[in-house]
């Protein structure tokens, strides 16, 4: 299909761009190509009128589901249908025990990160028309499956909590209704990092995190980045944060494979953030482990 084309595009990028810009513009180009494909497929599907999803099923306590299996559901297709729409239809019309997390259906609650056709994606944000059928829907890899598409998020939350994920500044202004000042530039700098919705797609895609349960992982490091780069916290706190990130299970485990950046549904340049923290750590002259 388009693999060759994408590679050519990569080479055609001017060298003056930063790696982050380059990767984001590549991602954009891929998105455009995907969109073209999606439109084409949508037309075919509309004529076809239904799509098949192959859904991973598992329930540790229900006879017949203790052994993982895939169930096929054929659901009527409509224009704009998302993976989440297809799952809801299958659940409400064919099998009410089909289990998956979802809530906002607009890519902000982060509940429905799934492994769809071999890639981590948000179900609510992924158009059925952009996927090859039958569409294979699995729980996020590298996490324990609780049931069907629901995974145990506990480890993810623990890692998020491990980086002191809260703002720290004891030196607050004392005037009536007086805020801390933050330059628009600094706000812009942390903007992308603050968009994380804790969906866990990045962690699931990361080979390092898969092999090493202790590695903080991209989401937690990005959370630390959000505070370390926030000028309101001040230099002393930043040093403390870098110390946490520098430890054995911190930034140095990242091997810049970019899989997290690739799957992030909020387009956060995670790998770049990790790299920047590595540079900051070196700058601040802290020892490696």
């Amino acid at each position, binding site marked *: 299909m388009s693999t060759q084309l994408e590679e050519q595009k990569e080479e055609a990028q001017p060298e003056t761009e930063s790696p982050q810009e380059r990767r984001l513009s590549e991602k954009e180009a891929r998105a455009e190509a995907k969109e073209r494909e999606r439109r084409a497929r949508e037309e075919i599907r509309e004529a076809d009128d239904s799509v098949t999803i192959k859904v991973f099923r598992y*329930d*540790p306590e229900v006879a017949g589901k203790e052994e993982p299996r895939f169930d096929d559901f054929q659901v009527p297709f409509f224009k704009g249908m998302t993976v989440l729409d297809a799952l809801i239809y299958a659940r409400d019309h064919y099998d009410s025990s089909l289990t998956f997390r979802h809530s*906002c259906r607009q890519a902000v609650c982060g509940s429905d990160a799934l492994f769809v056709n071999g890639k981590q994606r948000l179900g609510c944000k992924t158009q059925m028309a952009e996927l090859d059928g039958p569409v294979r829907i699995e729980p996020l890899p590298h996490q324990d499956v609780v049931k069907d598409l629901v995974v145990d998020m506990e480890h993810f939350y623990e890692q998020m909590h491990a980086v002191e994920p809260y703002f720290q500044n004891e030196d607050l202004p004392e005037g009536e209704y*007086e805020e801390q000042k933050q330059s628009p530039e600094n706000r812009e700098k942390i903007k992308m990092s603050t*968009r994380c919705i804790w969906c866990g797609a990045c962690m699931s895609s990361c080979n390092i995190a898969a092999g090493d349960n202790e590695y903080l992982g991209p989401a937690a490091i990005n959370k630390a980045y959000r505070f370390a780069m926030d000028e309101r916290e001040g230099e002393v706190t930043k040093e403390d944060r870098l110390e946490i990130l520098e430890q054995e299970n911190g930034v140095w485990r990242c091997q810049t494979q970019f899989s997290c950046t690739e799957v992030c549904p909020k387009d956060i340049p995670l790998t770049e953030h990790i790299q920047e923290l590595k540079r900051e750590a070196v700058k601040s002259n802290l020892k490696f482990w």
Partner: protein
Amino acid sequence: MHEHDVLVVGAGGAGLRAAIAAHEEGADVAMVTKLHPVRSHTGAAEGGINAALHPEDSWELHAYDTMKGSDYLGDAPAVETFAQDARDEVIQLEHWGMPFSREEDGTVSQRPFGGLSHPRTTYAGAETGHHLLHTMYEQVVKRGIEVYEEWHVMNLAVTDHDDVEDRECHGLVAYDIASGEIEGFRASDGVILATGGPGQVFDHTTNAVANTGDGYAMAYRAGVPLEDMEFVQFHPTTLPSTGVLISEGVRGEGGILYNDDEERLMFEYGYANNDGELASRDVVSRAELTEVNEGRGIEDEYVHLDMRHLGEERILDRLENILHLAEDFEGVDGLEEPMPVKPGQHYQMGGVETNENGQTCIDGLYAAGETACVSLHGANRLGGNALPELLVYGARAGKHAAGGDLGEAEIPTGPSAQNEASDMDAAAEIGALDAGSAGVAADGAAVDAQTVIEAAVQREQERVERLLEADGINHAHVRDDVQETMTENVNVFRREENLKDALADLREARERYQHVAVDDPSRTYNTDLIHTMETRNIIDVAESIAIGALAREEFRGAHWREQHQERKDDEWLKHTMLAWNDGAPQLYYKPVILEAEKEYEPKERSY
């Protein structure tokens, strides 16, 4: 049994703020939520947080705008407390690290919003709710506040006195979604309901799938009156295919609404000759639907919201999230073309009756945020007033429950505040199918905490056994029917016969609900069971909205009635109250309070 001083049900903005306040007051506080906190729907709020921070602005102006926006159905003590406290709350958020959008001098930016006399909406891009939610969850983590996440609260544990005002809330019963365990929770100082809105009562809504009105329904069945439930906000700019919200911030920054003839409808047809697109939400929603009904809608369904003229730089700076939403959920590039929008259910003005301290008429039971009706928003909420409400009243409820001193409240609650009974004929039966046996038992039975909670646990265990063992219909079909009739009959424009049809349909839904069953036998993560329990709540809340809408024969704020096309202050300057009355609902009224520090004379509401 789990024991804490204060239990907070729900972990969105109001719940998180309440928990932090209770913790600061020294209480052992825990949160019980059917989602993980960061999944809460506060995260989807886009536009901003109103607070009169600018030296030329004042809390008095904010209170005045809010009262006018409410169409004079807000209670003055609630409105004034809100406008005063909102300023501290916004600054508190900033001190907790909230990434607000900034001016060149580093101060927090404020933008214009509908119905405001001054630009006082603070914001963080077009994803203010996301940042507010995460900032407060961070503070909960920092304080080590215990969170029972993915625990669905099934019911409250309330004593069974005949007189609602004698009842006490001792705790609750919750279901651990992961394991299927049903457990009792004791709260020695208070239970705070902060479960958000009931958007799933309708089928075109900006609300999340989890917004099933659990808090309203549980408080209502325990005996707390629901107040002004007919006042439902339909947001004028939602995406037609999914109901995803397009922030009022787009119009605040200068976005324009066009009909199919490319006319600027708000001015062309005189809906709001002064404020145009920035009129109050109820005004704009009616304008859009009138255009559609008169044949000037696009594809007979929606109108266009155009922001292209704002320029790419400004859009990316202040409204970037809107571009993503329009692209991902409607396939429209907001930089290149206008966005299709239509009204969608967005917010419930009415709710669980509380006073300014978050207290209900049941001792130890509180409500805050969208779940509560204090009454701040009256007949119509202004954009940017929901987030400060959940901060102000979340904090007050948390503080009061934990024993903090807020002074005596001025707003009376409970059936004793009634000044007029209703003689409305609902034309359909309402309430429990088997009134009397539902909810609490007869007076004189045990009232101590232990017994009350154990009895409540047992009732819920029996309910779950029944649902799991029975053969019957899938709740999803009942839920669909409720959503359909509410959207068809209890929408922006309301007619008597439609409202009666809705009540009849809801009666039928209630009867069908008797026959629902859960197919999935599993104790592990049984969402079939959770959703089935939610659907009962949806039915109760839907009915309360339809009854209120039928009772109120006037046109006020978001409530439009055919053949009653004016605001009738002589007759209707009062709150609609609906008490469950152990399954045989009673409708009554209580007066609006239009005077506190200032006096608010009802004026004609034009924008």
